[in-house]
């Protein structure tokens, strides 16, 4: 048996705009891994691929929309969720996933995040938390751990970060999980659950950003940050969400798990999507 077989395409290429590869992400960046998991979860979803749409904001993570070979929307910074709400309400047949960064979703987009969770609108949000604004070159954001160094916190971050699963669950999400880009199988599985869940589902994915975050915080390359996750992560699906804050300290565990899976009334304003088509066709 030969060792490896050389190939020139990848099974996931079908779901990717392969003509746009290689993507812009840095070597050692975790975003590609998260996107790989998502393509896999999408394939497993019972909804036909044509009906999947992806909405991103602006940021490195926000570029995901541009690589997925589905109807995909790369909107403005922070506004992926309201855009997704418009799509979903106007055409409820769409399987709408918002895929964006921690800054996009929790800094400038934080209000939309909590309100969408409150409404319990039936969309899935995948939030890649790399602890900083990667795209703009590594500034601190609302997920940057206390004391971490970034280009705007040269003396260490004086702010305390959000605990996103806790925040989003408090706001009303019915499915909430956290994984890292190392935990690819659990992540993939959680994404699949999130896609299938009716209501607002939220998957936080911790991922290395060696260029924006690793560098300044002695985390080294992407690989080192992956080892860091390996060392510190524990899985506790039943964790008390109050207790899963993230910090820079090596002593504190990074708690992962599928934390919340419950039922609440799903937001469904009275639109009859099929009727939409009829008004469209003034000129074909």
């Amino acid at each position, binding site marked *: 048996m030969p060792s490896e077989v050389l190939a020139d395409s990848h099974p996931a290429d079908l779901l990717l705009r392969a003509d746009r590869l290689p993507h812009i992400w840095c070597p050692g960046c975790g975003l590609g891994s998260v996107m790989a998991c998502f393509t896999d979860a999408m394939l497993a979803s019972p909804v036909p691929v044509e009906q999947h749409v992806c*909405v991103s904001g602006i940021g490195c993570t926000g570029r995901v929309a541009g690589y997925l070979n589905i109807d995909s929307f790369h909107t403005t910074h922070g506004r992926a969720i309201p855009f997704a709400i418009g799509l979903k*309400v106007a055409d409820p047949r*769409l399987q709408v996933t918002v895929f964006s960064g921690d800054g996009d979703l929790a800094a400038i987009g934080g209000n939309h995040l909590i309100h969408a969770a409150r409404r319990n609108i039936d969309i899935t949000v995948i939030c890649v938390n790399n602890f900083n604004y990667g795209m703009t070159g590594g500034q601190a954001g609302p997920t940057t751990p206390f004391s971490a160094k970034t280009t705007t916190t040269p003396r260490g971050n004086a702010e305390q970060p959000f605990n996103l699963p806790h925040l989003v669950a408090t706001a009303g999400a019915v499915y909430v999980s956290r994984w890292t880009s190392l935990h690819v199988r659990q992540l993939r599985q959680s994404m699949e659950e999130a896609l299938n869940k009716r209501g607002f589902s939220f998957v936080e994915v911790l991922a290395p950003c060696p260029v924006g975050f690793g560098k300044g915080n002695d985390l080294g390359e992407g690989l080192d940050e992956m080892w860091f996750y390996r060392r510190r992560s524990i899985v506790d699906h039943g964790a008390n969400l109050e207790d899963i804050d993230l910090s820079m300290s090596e002593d504190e565990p990074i708690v992962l798990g599928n934390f919340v899976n419950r039922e609440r009334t799903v937001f469904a304003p009275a639109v009859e999507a099929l009727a939409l088509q009829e008004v469209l066709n003034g000129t074909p």
Partner: protein
Amino acid sequence: MSVRAASVLTGSHFMNGDTASAEGALAAGCLYFGGYPITPSTEIAERLARRLPEVGGAYVQMEDELASITSVIGASWAGARSMTATSGPGFSLMMEAIGLAAMTEAPCVIVNVQRGGPSTGLPTLVAQADIMQARWGTHGDIQAIALVPSSCQEMFDLTVRAFNLADRFRHPVIVLADEVIGHLTERVVIPEASEIPFVGRRTPALPPDEHFRPFRALDDSLVPPMPLPGIGYKTHVTSLTHDERGYPQPDAGIHDTLVRRISDKITRFQSQIIDVEEIALDDAEIGVVAFGSTARTARRAIALARERGVRAGILRLITVWPFPEDAIRALANRVDAIVVAEMNLGQARREVERVAGLTPVIGSHHAGGALLPAETILDSIMEAAHYAQRSPGRLASRGSAAAG
């Protein structure tokens, strides 16, 4: 067309302007409203909250105006005729997303019922000071399409038209109403559904294949057919500068091509958009340029002027953007002087000055808070008549508001 017929409240109504706009939206087939209440536009939202679900549409009250307008753009991309309504402060918050709509060529309608600004200003009182903002409020270069109703009937008619223009040009269209018209109640006649003008959005003629280029215009219109999501076109839509495939391209040449196309698609066909009404201009020596509720005051003012022996007429702008330059030029060639009457410090006046050539231009305005009194316009007309008599050459344009 069943949705539309059910949506049209055919008949004569005594209805306020905001409500008429809401009914215009329904008659145009609007199925999505994303909004956030703000005086004096709130009645539009309230009406649609009640009515949209009756016709299979959805009213979503978002958490703010950023979310409102962005959800409207999302709904537009899902294929729905969609709109929002707001006033000054909310309009200012929508500026970024208006650029998104223009850049992604998402048709949608924004009704701005103008009130006194700047800032929170005069929430319940009238102004017309968002004229220039409607044109220039977002960063980068885009065109604006803005319609200005002068009556409740026009609140209905122009809202319908706004949807048709939005789909025709794949561009956000603004209905620049004002508080007086929004809060006024008048007779509104809603025609039969079949009589409501309808110009739908063009969608790709062919099913999806790998040659499909979502941002390639197939004809002189420069407007690419707009694919629906969910049916296999796999369109990528981005707010970044993009090529015909929709792929981001940080390139000056592609940028120039794109920005000019989304501009030219409107300017080239601006005659399809521009609409003005001429009132008593046949024999006029003084032309009053006015729009919105001020145009009604102007009617009274020209009557008073004529009583005093000055033949004044009105060029009422129904479209302020694209600016009716040709009509103004024609007016300038025909009258001795132009008065621009508006409830702001002289916004449209600047545009008139730009194209009026040698004809003197006099501003008649105040900052808002109440209708411009007919007497103020009358004074300007008399002043204009005076000037025009004395100095036939080009005058420096004058007005009570400061320039800058």
